């Protein structure tokens, strides 16, 4: 059942990404390109997504997930260096091509070779991240 619901959630996510135009790199780069032909669509997508999600968070109060377990606890609220550095690196990559993790996977079937090359490189980056994180922690400890 957990896998069925996960499949439905993933399929719904992909449908939303496709309909919203977020698998189109021109629309994403258009949002980031404030000094060019600026495209505000992404703000509408974000706003549209945040509303049902905010309701969902309200519904978690005093309840448990329908399929058991517990809801995720609030993570440590501190804003660390990794959050900032990681987000800056992510934003740079996002700007260069206009793809982020969700849309890059959702568009596998129609994104052609470009999509596959991006996806392979992204997987490589994700694979390399834990050792980089460890190195950063060691450097902090030594300092």
């Amino acid at each position, binding site marked *: 059942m957990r896998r069925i619901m996960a499949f439905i959630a993933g399929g719904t996510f992909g449908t939303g990404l*496709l309909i919203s135009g977020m698998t189109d790199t021109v629309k994403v780069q258009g949002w980031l390109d404030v000094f060019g032909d600026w495209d505000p669509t992404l703000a509408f997508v974000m706003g549209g997504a945040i509303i049902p999600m905010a309701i969902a968070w309200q519904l978690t109060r005093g309840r448990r997930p329908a399929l058991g377990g517990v809801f995720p606890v609030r993570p440590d609220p501190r804003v660390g260096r990794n959050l900032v550095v990681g*987000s800056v690196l992510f934003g740079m990559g996002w700007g260069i091509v206009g793809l982020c993790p969700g849309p890059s996977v959702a568009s596998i*079937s129609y994104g052609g070779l470009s999509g596959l090359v991006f996806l392979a490189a992204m*997987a490589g980056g994700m694979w390399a991240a834990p050792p980089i994180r460890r190195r950063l922690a060691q450097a902090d400890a030594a300092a």
Partner: protein
Amino acid sequence: MEQDWINGLIGGGIIGLAGAIYLLANGRIMGASGIIGGLVDGSAGSHAGERVAFIAGLVAVPGLIALVVGAPDTHATGNIALLVAAGLLVGVGTRLANGCTSGHGVCGISRLSLRGIVATVFYIGAGGITMVLLRHVLGVI
């Protein structure tokens, strides 16, 4: 343009619905980079099965829609060097930051998480500066 905004709002609502399903049914945060990254680096553990199922849905349903109504164009660059550089940056960056547009942006901001808001400000800011430098100053994208 107006139609794009409406599609954006409707598509966004469906994305939020997906996040709500994954949270209320499975008790998990719908963060694409976390779901994929946990499988890539092996940290998913006992949650690997539902992550694979999520990705299967994320691939199959848009694929089916593309098959029925026609595939939209992603307009992604064909420049291999740019694709590899961008992919590596997105991969390392989202894992260091523990989230991307879906995790920090949609799921984080909707619960007023300071980390989600800060991450979103920085990745949009960095993306904007990258566009200025690469498109308007250097003219490479």
